[in-house]
């Protein structure tokens, strides 16, 4: 089954939009960003401490989100929301990987990231990297992060982009989601990508 080309209907609007796929189609319930950003590429550190590349997730639908574990509110809300969407997808959920990229490598060790992401489900993968690797990846997808000043206990807050990016099995950028999208819409769109 292919949803990618509803060609005759939207050919004209496609040309106008200048986008690669059928963005004029109403099939997506989250924001279609096909072609507007580069394919998924990164070199980061995995939960086991090993070096990982985007290619290691080839064949899976990838959901990319930036955050940090000392974020007890927004990050678990977002991951919990994605987990709720995946739970409604049955076997299709096995074809999805949620890549939680910590922009706080100083506190987020691979071991802590593993524990943190495991709390949300088997599809959740914690990644982090050097400042250079993180800067490169966040720049690539036009998100930002920054650190607040440490308090008297040495704790600091981290500001991070809240966008959720979705890449298809081949690693092409496809959708922009955010945590206020209903779980039904998220599950619907991820299912379409899994079954492309």
């Amino acid at each position, binding site marked *: 089954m292919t949803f990618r080309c509803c060609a005759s209907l939207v050919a004209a609007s496609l040309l106008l939009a200048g986008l690669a796929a059928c963005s004029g189609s109403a099939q997506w319930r989250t924001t279609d960003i096909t072609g507007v*950003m580069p394919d998924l590429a990164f070199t980061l550190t995995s939960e086991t401490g090993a070096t990982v590349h985007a290619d290691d997730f080839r064949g899976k639908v990838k959901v990319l989100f930036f*955050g940090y*574990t*000392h*974020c*007890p*509110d*927004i990050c*678990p*809300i977002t*991951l*919990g*929301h994605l*987990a*709720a969407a995946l739970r409604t997808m049955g076997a299709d959920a096995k074809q999805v990987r949620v890549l939680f990229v910590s922009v706080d490598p100083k506190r987020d060790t691979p071991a*802590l990231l593993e*524990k*943190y992401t*495991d*709390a*949300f489900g088997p599809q959740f993968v914690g990644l982090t990297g050097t400042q250079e690797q993180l800067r490169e990846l966040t720049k690539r*997808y*036009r*998100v*930002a992060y920054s650190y*607040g000043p440490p*308090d008297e*206990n040495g*704790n600091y*807050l981290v*500001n*991070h*982009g*809240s*966008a*959720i*990016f979705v890449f298809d099995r081949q690693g092409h950028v496809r959708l*922009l989601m*955010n*945590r206020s999208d209903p779980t039904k819409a998220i599950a619907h769109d991820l299912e379409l990508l899994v079954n492309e």
Partner: protein
Amino acid sequence: MPVFRHLLFKSLLLAGVALMFVPAVAATDTVPFSVSHAWIRWLPGNLPLAGYATLENDTSEARILVAASSPAFKRIEFHRSMEMHGMKGMDHMMGGMSHMKHLKSVTVPAHGTFRFGPGAYHLMMWRSGDIEVGDHVPVTFRFSNGMTMTVEFAVRGPAG
């Protein structure tokens, strides 16, 4: 069960219900000030946790919450999660930016409600011992007028 939680349970029993809902004025038919929907989002390791609760003030005076404490936490702060859009000089950014703000106090308006809720105001709780999903943890709120009240928070899983 760790000794720590056993002690918590015991102290709650000793204190009884009186400790849990201390009315701001002498007993009337309605509770003039109450706290409900109190829960904590559990996370693994020793990470700080977020706590949520709804504070209802049926008195004619605003109540200013200035501190929260608990035997299960070494420090509890008031935080607000915020989403920034269209930041100056950042028009090229995709989506918004999440950040947290540390607050010294929060105000429950007269005849009004204040809600610590997911994605907005929350208690930022730095734990001092083991806490598990299913636990009930007492938290004492202190207000600027000297009023204190202790509320039991239910510990739920990471997804709430």
